[in-house]
């Protein structure tokens, strides 16, 4: 079964390579970067021509270009509405599966290719986003589905379906990588972050400002990662939660760090965080978690020590953090 699944993935990755006109194949170094470049290069003229100002507008432009219509399901009434619209009125039989599919809380999104749609119709593809549990990923989901249409050839008679979607799935990983480029599109998003950098230091409020201006429906973490990536001076985005050691998750439960993003400006800096490291009490991240509030301030990475007594490079940084649920989201920037 695993072999079949893997072969299916390789067939799809090959079809993506053919569709995007790539020389390299999956498994060769640089394949993913080539795919991102090719896809961005292909859609850049469409985005440029539409002259969008925000990420939400880019999503709308690309969805229109690829005839994708988004539907959001937040409760049972929405399912009834979609069944009436697509199954009963438009005679799209695939929507008879909708109710059963959305009963599974693990289903994030469904993409239907309408069989009875005319070529000029704007909803030849209908992406149904399951927001019954959370709408945190709604922004990202849109770009993910759009990218499937952009990167994969159109299926004339549906020879294969995209169903195995675990995080280890190489196709989905590639699609996510490409989707990230469109969700926070460098020619628009980069200057926005640069302008914020001139006005203010990197903190949660900065991220919220940029998010509000560019992609209000994006999640805080997605925006934080994107701002951290394009921040013109060294920056890191981290999360922290209570857990044990990597080697034995039941031992030494403590507030520990997970690296999310390292900014493009940070590659030459000495700012370095060890994965799963304990957060020291002196860090604003610690305060944010245990006092359940926003916290920010100056700290020195030299105060971050491992159990064996090693410490990070002594670099003064500004840290800003917020706790949402059981996780702290933080940005660390060089002073």
């Amino acid at each position, binding site marked *: 079964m695993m072999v079949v699944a893997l072969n299916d993935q390789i067939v799809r990755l090959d079809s993506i390579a053919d569709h995007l006109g790539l020389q390299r194949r999956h498994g060769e170094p640089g394949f993913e970067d080539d795919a991102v470049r090719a896809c961005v290069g292909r859609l850049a003229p469409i985005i440029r021509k539409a002259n969008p100002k925000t990420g939400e507008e880019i999503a709308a432009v690309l969805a229109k270009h690829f005839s994708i219509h988004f539907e959001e399901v937040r409760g049972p009434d929405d399912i009834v509405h979609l069944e009436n619209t697509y199954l009963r009125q438009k005679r799209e039989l695939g929507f008879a*599966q909708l109710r059963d599919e959305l009963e599974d809380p*693990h*289903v994030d999104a469904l993409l239907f290719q309408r*069989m009875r749609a005319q070529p000029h119709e704007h909803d030849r593809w209908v992406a149904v986003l399951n927001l019954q549990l959370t709408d945190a990923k709604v922004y990202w989901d849109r770009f993910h589905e759009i990218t499937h249409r952009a990167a994969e050839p159109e299926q004339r008679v549906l020879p294969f379906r*995209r169903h195995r979607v675990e995080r280890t799935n190489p196709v989905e990983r590639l699609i996510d990588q490409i989707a990230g480029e469109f969700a926070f599109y460098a020619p628009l998003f980069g200057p926005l972050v640069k302008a914020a950098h001139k006005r203010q230091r990197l903190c949660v409020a900065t991220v919220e400002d940029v998010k509000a201006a560019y992609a209000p429906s994006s999640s805080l973490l997605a925006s934080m990662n994107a701002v951290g990536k394009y921040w013109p001076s060294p920056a890191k985005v981290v999360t922290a939660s209570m857990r044990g050691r990597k080697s034995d998750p039941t031992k030494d439960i403590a507030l520990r760090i997970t690296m999310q993003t390292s900014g493009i400006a940070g590659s030459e800096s000495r700012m370095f965080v060890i994965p799963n490291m304990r957060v020291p009490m002196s860090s604003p991240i610690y305060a944010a978690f245990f006092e359940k509030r926003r916290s920010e301030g100056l700290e020195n990475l030299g105060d971050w020590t491992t159990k064996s007594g090693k410490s990070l490079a002594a670099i003064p940084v500004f840290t800003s953090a917020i706790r949402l649920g059981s996780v702290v989201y933080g940005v660390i920037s060089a002073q």
Partner: protein
Amino acid sequence: MQQLASDAGMSPGYLSEVERGLSAISFEKLVRIAEELKVTTDFLKDGKGAPGESDAVRIPAALSAAAEQLGLSHRSTMRLLEGRQSLVARRSQSQETEWNVQQWFDFYERVKEYLPDA
């Protein structure tokens, strides 16, 4: 012909009659022959969908069994398959398994009023 008949579980005489248009063939048997020859049912019927063509459609065995029991026409069976496959992507943490006969029955019940046989 004898080998194919044996592999498909039919008599050579019957297969010969089908080939010459002297006997009717059920959809399920057509699928069995198509699977043995590794071609599509369309190819057997009218030469379309030759081996290697990218638009070949393979009828799942569970669907052909369900269609046989329900007495569905080829068009209705293909509409069921088309409906099922129009869900082209399903993003989930959970695995999807291939439908069994009962699931095809359930699907049929929900959409039967929109099928050509209705």
